[in-house]
């Protein structure tokens, strides 16, 4: 499947700067969680903390690839266990220099591996891209319900 989000944005900053913003805990906590404990080294595990005490939620993170200033990839799980292929989402950032700036490609994928292949179709075209448009009429009907 195909729970997958992909984005591409242009950033008017050098890839080195963008990489730093994506990977350093100091900047991470500005754009994502409330607290980040992370070392950008392959195999390293860290945590992201959301919310204030005592209502905090801790997500775990495992760094998969860290190649400054080109690629950063990690898995993250929000059930508190160590993020592995079975329980987590894979996030990748690819940085490509473009003039004075950077093209940043982002993807979050997962749950594919968490499924049970023997029970699954060998049909990957039936992902969200196929499914959502077919459901649109149903949701519109729900939305227009009095």
């Amino acid at each position, binding site marked *: 499947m195909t729970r997958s989000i992909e*984005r591409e944005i242009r*950033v008017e900053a050098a890839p080195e700067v963008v990489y730093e913003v994506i990977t350093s805990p100091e*900047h991470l906590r500005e*754009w994502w969680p409330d607290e980040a404990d992370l070392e950008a080294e392959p195999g390293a595990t860290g945590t992201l903390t959301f919310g204030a005490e005592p209502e905090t939620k801790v997500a775990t993170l495992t760094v998969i690839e860290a190649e400054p200033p080109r690629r950063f990839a990690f898995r993250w799980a929000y059930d508190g266990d160590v993020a592995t292929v079975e329980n987590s989402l894979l996030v990748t950032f690819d940085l490509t220099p473009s003039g004075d700036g*950077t093209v940043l490609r982002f993807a979050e994928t997962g749950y594919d591996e968490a499924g049970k292949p023997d*029970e699954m*179709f060998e049909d990957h075209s039936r992902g969200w891209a196929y499914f959502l448009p077919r459901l649109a009429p*149903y949701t519109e009907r*729900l939305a227009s319900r009095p």
Partner: protein
Amino acid sequence: MIDDELWSAIGDPTRRRMLDLLLANGGGTATSLSEHLPVTRQAVAKHLGVLDRVGLVHATPAGRERQYTVDEDQLARAISQLATVTEAWDRRLRRIKRIAETIQRDREPNT
């Protein structure tokens, strides 16, 4: 935070196909669904159990079997969660862009 159970319930292609069939036919049983799917009736029944647990389908007795229908409110909720997750990443990416561009400008005061 998204609802993990709801996500993984809807994340499986066989279960999505089942929801599709149930919506198209206005409901169905494990037997009627298995006729349209390359999996056994037992496997279909197991998948229906997963969908039932997260409230995506509801069962009513129909003879020896159970008739399942889709809970369209819950399905709409699952779909809106997908949109929420996507929007959250869009916000994060906008923040990454803003932070990086601010740092870059600070490092090059002449440009």
